[in-house]
């Protein structure tokens, strides 16, 4: 029975032209428009490619910086370091074979000065600059603590280590801190959350007081949940496929560097789709409004959610993170965007899993809430 009903639900959704337009074609059109608008940025910055940099070290200079560069080269795939002489480095920069030169010079016996020379100012040069700034800040912090409060140096070192880790993530983030890319992440989030309208449609076909079709299904000689599961499964499958198709279009046709961890990308899209569909289903069964008002509410939730994750305004996500962090932690679109972001930026999966976990909890709340509302329901009026 499940597969037969699943097949028919799939046919219904696949044949619905409005659904195809809004959930498949519209995101593709919007993605194409984004690419026309921001294409030069995304093409210029090819993420996950090491930034070539020359390193010139004087004898007696601080070796820690060389160690940091090595780490960033081997562990983080952020830079590609060529340790060369000054003349050769300048030659490489002129020929644009490197994006910058780090000079590590011994100023006094115990002091070193590290500088960066770049030819032009773009995102890669900014990354190199931020690496240097963070290193210097950390170095200075440790020196100050060592002088003023020697007994706390160990604790400070531990804290600084943590900070370095964070800053490393941030600097690597800067590598793909491509604000333009955030628009595309938000676009994918919007595509996932378009499942709200699909979820609402499922609710319309499920609650007897919402449509005659639902009434006919509810009075059939079978548990209405046995009718609901195939419906939800079919809509989730189709919405998931649509989003995957859109993402493939962004990646392979528009060459937007969404990421290359396909397993996690698909998992994020799947969880995002589930979140959208259960959000719509919950609105459908729990909110007492006419259908049109519910539909408007779903679209409103989706658009507000996407707005605050940065779909329409660059930097919005950062503002919300700073001033209303709680909202940022429960905003569905932000969670999806952050999942993509953390997946592609950080080496570790901690933040990614944190976002995915929050989404899973939200899905669980919405699903349980919906089923509590509709369980053994008889209606006061139809």
């Amino acid at each position, binding site marked *: *029975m499940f597969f*037969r*009903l699943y097949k*028919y639900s799939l*046919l*219904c*959704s696949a*044949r*619905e032209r409005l659904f195809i337009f809004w959930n498949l074609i519209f995101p593709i059109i919007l993605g194409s428009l984004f690419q026309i608008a921001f294409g030069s940025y995304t093409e210029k910055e090819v993420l996950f490619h090491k930034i070539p940099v020359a390193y010139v070290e004087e004898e007696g200079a601080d070796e820690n910086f060389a160690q940091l560069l090595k780490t960033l080269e081997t562990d983080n795939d952020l830079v590609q370091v060529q340790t060369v002489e000054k003349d050769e480095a300048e030659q490489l920069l002129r020929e644009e074979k490197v994006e910058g030169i780090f000079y590590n010079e011994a100023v006094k016996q115990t002091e070193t000065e590290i500088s960066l020379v770049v030819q032009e100012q773009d995102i890669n040069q900014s990354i190199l600059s931020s690496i240097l700034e963070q290193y210097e800040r950390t170095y200075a912090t440790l020196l100050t603590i060592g002088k003023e409060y020697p007994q706390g140096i160990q604790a400070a070192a531990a804290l600084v280590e943590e900070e370095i880790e964070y800053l490393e993530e941030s600097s690597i983030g800067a590598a793909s801190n491509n604000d333009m890319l955030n628009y595309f992440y938000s676009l994918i989030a919007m595509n996932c959350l378009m499942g709200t309208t699909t979820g609402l449609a499922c609710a319309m076909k499920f609650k*007897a007081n919402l*449509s*005659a*079709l639902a*009434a*006919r*299904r*509810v*009075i*059939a*000689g*079978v*548990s209405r949940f046995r*009718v609901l599961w195939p419906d939800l499964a079919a809509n989730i499958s189709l919405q998931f496929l649509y989003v995957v198709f859109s993402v493939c279009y962004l990646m392979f046709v528009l060459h937007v560097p969404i990421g290359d961890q396909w397993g996690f990308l698909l998992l994020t899209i799947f969880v995002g789709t589930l979140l959208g569909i259960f959000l719509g289903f919950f609105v459908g069964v729990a909110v007492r409004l006419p259908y049109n008002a519910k539909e408007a509410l779903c679209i409103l939730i989706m658009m507000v959610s996407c707005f605050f994750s940065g779909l329409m305004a660059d930097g919005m996500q950062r503002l919300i993170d700073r001033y209303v962090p709680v909202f940022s932690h429960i905003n569905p679109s932000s969670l999806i965007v952050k999942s993509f972001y953390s997946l592609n930026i950080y080496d570790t999966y901690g933040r990614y899993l944190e976002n995915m976990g929050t989404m899973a909890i939200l899905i669980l709340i919405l699903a349980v809430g919906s089923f509590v509302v509709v369980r*053994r*329901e*008889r*209606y*006061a*009026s*139809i």
Partner: protein
Amino acid sequence: MGKKVVEIENLVKRYKELIALDHLNLTVEEGEIFGLLGPNGSGKTTAINCILALLHFDKGSVKVFGEEIQPDSYEIKKQIGVVLQNVAVFEELTVQENIDYFCGLYIQDKRTRKKYVEEAIVFSGLEDFRNFYPKKLSGGLLRRLNIACGIAHKPKLIIMDEPTVAVDPQSRNRILEGIQKLNQQGATIIYTSHYMEEVEQICSQIAILDKGRCVASGTKEELKSMIKMGEKIHLEVWNLQPFQIAEIKELRHVYQVNYQEGMLEIWCSGGKHNLVHILDYFNSREIGFGRVYSELPTLNDVFLEITGKELRDSV
């Protein structure tokens, strides 16, 4: 006395201050085509929704096939087919797919289901439209599809809530014939309609609902015998004087007279020779008359007399 298929006892359903069903009592027996008549808002659809356990009610009981029906009474529900007032089909599925979908909610065996779906298509006369989408069907065909979806699984009890609304006469006849055929095949049918002539044509038992109460029930003959009117006589007469109209009113069994534009209508209570008495009066007064014809009471007359209101468009 046949087996009771539906028993409604003292059913009360309120929508806030409005009493939709007021201690309603109804019994539908096996093999009947049971007509539920009533003006808009009389409680017909509410009663049906209670029978289907869709609505919760305030008081009373509803038994179907001898058992109290609950939302999860799936075994009982499997024996019920419903044709709702509003067309309830998937716009994105073809005629055949729609019937297969709904039949499949009841019939799991693939071969049986295929056979039933085919039979429902033939029964509804939709053979030439099996691959059509609902939006391509005319109003009448759409109604037939709605019926096919409700009866494909061969239920023992079929509930039809105004299935012929906005249907052309050809489709209506086909639907009514179909309902009688289903009944002959053994199905018990509860039929609600606005159209008196339909109910009169097909129903073996009729209940008239008004303000949530059953104001009269029985066979159509029994209902007709309940009312005062036995016969309505029409005469074409010119220049009838008011005193003559008053005299006619005084004749035996005559209880109402209406004279308009040369046509005299005389309502008589049950009597064997009403027409003879009236014609005798005209002969004795040497009043000339043209066409004469007599009408027996219809269900509409029964309804008007019992509820005191027009069936259609009344609230």
